[in-house]
């Protein structure tokens, strides 16, 4: 207890009201002087925003540099190992060859017509499949997540269906829907649906029970409960599944094209495959990846809008 007894013990009133530091007196805490303070804070605001923008800018630069470095390392080692014949470019291709192939496609078009047309065809299929699959997944996920009995009854069927190879389904769809866009979109749907469904389902079951209780007490009917509590709360789950699903929708569209198509990036890739053109295969994959990234960017933008209420991750943790 010796430490404590060394503390200066002044009389109560002596120390009170006279804090042992300069500029900030008691006055500032009260309601007067608000105008001058507002100006001061505005200045701080501007300063802070500028500093924050600068930090963000630098950070972005670093990220881009690292991405570039990664790309160079990856493609470089690939190119090198094929040039030195450590691996056979006949089987694994060569970045320079891929670039060349892309260039030909862009400048001279592909066997099936201009490259952009193939991209448009495949993206149409993917987008339709994605929208339908995601919508079905969300609706069924929420429905089954809310209705326990329905979930238990149907879950073995859904889980079993999920194990059915899409390649096989693709050929069934090609017969059922013909060679239209719908056959390919259907293949995309069966890939997207399950991923979205399982996440939406789990998202619904993870909703904080306190919040449900509160909403019900406040008078929310089932519809309100679903739209205002369940869906916003399950939104991170649904969005997480959407991140992966657009890529899967593209995969579905391409698998669909396997069973008959007149155009599309899938056809382009299969054509290349038939003619030992591994570079062409990779070029096609590259175009698919770029398209997926563009779509992903849109989904991320959507995500930022939908979950803007969340504590931002960049600033430190606030345990209050």
């Amino acid at each position: 207890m010796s430490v404590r007894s060394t503390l200066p013990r002044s009389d109560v009133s002596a120390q009170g009201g006279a804090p042992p530091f300069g500029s900030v007196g008691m006055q500032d805490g009260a309601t007067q002087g608000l105008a001058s303070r507002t100006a001061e804070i505005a200045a701080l605001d501007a300063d802070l925003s500028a500093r924050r923008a600068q930090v963000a800018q630098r950070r972005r630069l670093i990220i881009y540099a690292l991405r570039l470095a990664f790309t160079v390392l990856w493609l470089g080692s690939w190119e090198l190992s094929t040039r030195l014949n450590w691996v056979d470019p006949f089987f694994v291709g060569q970045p320079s060859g891929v670039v060349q192939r892309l260039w030909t496609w862009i400048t001279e078009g592909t066997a099936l017509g201009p490259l952009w047309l193939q991209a448009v065809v495949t993206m149409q299929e993917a987008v339709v499949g994605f929208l339908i699959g995601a919508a079905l997944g969300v609706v069924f996920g929420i429905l089954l997540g809310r209705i326990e009995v329905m979930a238990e009854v149907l879950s073995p069927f859904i889980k079993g269906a999920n194990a059915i190879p899409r390649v096989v389904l693709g050929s069934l769809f090609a017969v059922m829907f013909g060679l239209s866009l719908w056959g390919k979109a259907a293949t995309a749907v069966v890939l997207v649906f399950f991923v979205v469904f399982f996440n939406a389902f789990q998202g619904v079951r993870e909703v904080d029970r306190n919040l449900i209780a509160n909403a019900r007490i406040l008078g929310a009917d089932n519809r309100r409960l679903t739209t205002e509590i369940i869906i916003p709360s399950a939104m991170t789950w649904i969005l997480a599944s959407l991140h992966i699903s657009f890529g899967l929708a593209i995969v579905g569209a391409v698998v669909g094209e396997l069973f008959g198509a007149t155009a599309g990036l899938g056809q382009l890739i299969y054509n290349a495959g038939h003619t030992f053109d591994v570079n062409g295969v990779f070029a096609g994959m590259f175009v698919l990846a770029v398209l997926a990234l563009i779509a992903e960017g849109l989904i991320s933008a959507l995500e930022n809008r939908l979950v803007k209420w969340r504590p931002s991750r960049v600033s430190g943790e606030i345990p209050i």
Partner: protein
Amino acid sequence: GGTANNASGASSSSSSMQPVDLKIMVGGLNKQIYLPNMLAKQLGYFDQEKINVTLVDEGSGQGTELEVVAGNVDAGSGAYSHPVELNALGKKIETICQFGIAPGEAEMVATSKSSSIKSAADLKGKNLGVTDIGSGTHTLTLALLGKAGYSGSEAHYVAVGAGNTFIAAIKNGTIDAGMTTEPTITRLLQSGDAKVLIDLRTPQSTRAALGGDYPFIGIFAKNDWVNSHKDVAQRLVNVYVKTLKWIKAHSAAEIADKMPADYLVPSKDLYVAALQNQLSIFGTDCRMPSAGPQTVLSIEQNYVSSFKGKNANLSETYTNQFANSAS
């Protein structure tokens, strides 16, 4: 579309023809055994017959005939064995133009094994590559073994797909020999990884190996469709007859020049060399070789387990009617 018109023949003048839309599905548009399809388009022969054609490419190598049966396409380009098999199941499609009289495949043997595998008889007990279990290459392999006097169960069949996966399987010794098509054959020959054991890329060698003509790729459509679209069918066969004639009259290199540049990868040389090797499978008149259907049927009946005990009415599986009246 064209309505039933028995009068239409080879002489039909282009001025009296109704333009018609037609969807043809091809089991691998850029494969050389399907070459007449794209070539006809490139040569403008469809346009001459006022056929506005859509060539639907099918990359999986199966399903063309199903799409035809389902009515999703008007006609399909595929192997003659399919009309035969479907006929046994009560689904009637018929070949109206037969491109070739040989399969255009070859049983390849890995170079390292070529000293011990010299004939079909040596395939017994070996690992044999086929595209898929149950696929056409599987049937042909069974037939080869059968002709050599062995039952199908006396070898191991490995599904290795086609193209790169086939080459890799030969290279790393997964299979001792295997059935595949061009340009894989030429590619293997050029790299020295494999040799041709039994060549089914010429009519002569095919007869030697299978005991008869083996009609392979052609154009088929539903019997109903053919009967109700005689005019269109005729014009279609006209296109292919002209194309086959053009093929006969030109060299492999000249043919290659007509094809889309994309088909000539990795090199035009490989494409030309491969084409040269199997150019002789293409006939000139779209006619079904006379004993061909029976050969196919008996191979199916003898060696394909799922076909055992079934029969097909061969007369329903092809018609030479259009080929005969084609110019």
